[in-house]
């Protein structure tokens, strides 16, 4: 149990997706202009990462991993090179399904952040979640915890950046730095702050 909790904390803070691993930066920068859209994106990320990482675990270990077909008398079969295409397909399908379910059962939530959902298909952070899951050979429980944790880390970071950027109205910036430039500098400062969480991983 403590191991899962440690994994959760390290996924959310130490290995923060946008700030220390540079993942999902395109949407991170594009949708953090105002806090409302940033929070919507954050919730969508938690949902999609929390669903796709364990789902891809099942698919990888049930179908693609070396030796997965041993029960059918084909232990030498190794389909892991197909994992990229399989993962992308699963992510696209999950995002579509999630959007339809939300639209049907929770129309208010769908109205709040439904428009971000299709974007998440091509979000590198989500694909990276599944690739890390294979790379670090997590178990099913670990992969679920990892998915939710890294989604939470992304949500925190994007909400904070959105809040800071809406305050930029009071800053008198040089013309060339306005918009994208200052967003990078802010992200760098936040990344410095998150670097101090690195100590957290080693403490028991």
């Amino acid at each position, binding site marked *: 149990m403590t191991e899962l909790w440690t994994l959760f904390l390290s996924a959310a803070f130490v290995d923060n997706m946008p*700030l*220390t*691993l*540079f*993942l*999902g*930066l*395109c949407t991170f*920068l*594009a949708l953090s*202009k*105002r806090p409302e859209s940033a929070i919507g994106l954050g919730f969508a990320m938690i949902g999609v990462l929390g669903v796709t990482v364990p789902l891809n675990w099942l698919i990888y270990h049930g179908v693609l991993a070396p030796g997965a077909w041993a029960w059918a008398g084909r232990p030498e079969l190794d389909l892991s*090179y*197909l994992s*990229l*295409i399989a993962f*992308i397909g699963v992510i*696209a399908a999950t995002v579509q399904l999630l959007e339809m379910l939300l639209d049907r059962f929770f129309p208010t939530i769908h109205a709040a952040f439904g428009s971000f959902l299709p974007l998440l*298909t*091509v*979000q*590198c952070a*989500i*694909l*990276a979640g599944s*690739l*890390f899951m294979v*790379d670090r050979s997590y178990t099913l429980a670990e992969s679920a915890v990892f998915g939710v944790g890294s989604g939470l880390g992304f949500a925190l970071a994007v909400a904070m950046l959105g809040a800071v*950027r*809406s305050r*930029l*109205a*009071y800053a008198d910036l*040089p*013309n*060339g*730095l*306005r*918009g*994208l*430039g*200052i*967003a*990078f*500098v802010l*992200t*760098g*400062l936040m*990344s*410095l702050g998150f*670097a101090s969480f690195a100590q957290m991983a080693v403490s028991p």
Partner: protein
Amino acid sequence: MAKRADILATLTAPLIRQNPVTLQILGICSALAVTTSLATAVTMSVSLTVVLTLSAVIISLIRRHLPDTIRLIVQIVIVASLVIVIDQILQAYLAEISRALSIYVSLITTNCLVLGRTEAFARHNPPLPAAVDAFGNGVGYSVILIVLGGIRELFGRGQLFGWQVLPLADAGGWFTPLSLMLLAPSAFFLLGGVVWAVRSLLPEQAEAPEHMPPATVRAAE
């Protein structure tokens, strides 16, 4: 002649003026993650340019047979197949660099730059301009990557391509490496600085203020 000028313009526009990273905000994730050394930056640039050009040509060739509703899925599958090929080649011949790049090669699949160019350009144009546009964007992306990779490796380790350029203080020289350059925050600062530099040289790229302070909004009313 006019046609050749067009092609030349398609090729050179993305280098600085329409640069994919600094202006179009495409492909930033990988631009920052792989620039801790020049060798990884160059490998990533070459892989991305190859994937981008090939996928643009393929999608441009089948553009008349591609139904609009499923085009995204088809494009992603084409890109993913090319990425798998590149990944396998890197693992076979450049194992060390492939390990340094870890999952970022696979992430070319979801690099917004590839999908952005195929969606915006290759889908509506014949193969030759599509290939030229993709190649130009790939080179524009590579320029930023190589500049960042060069700065970070030079000041972080005093090396270029693994060669000791600045003599280190530990080894009797004068240069003390700035280890911050190898960490995540410096990548953001450097790219912010590059964006600032480009936009100071080309003022028409500067963005309008995102928000107005309440006081000035009220005054404007």
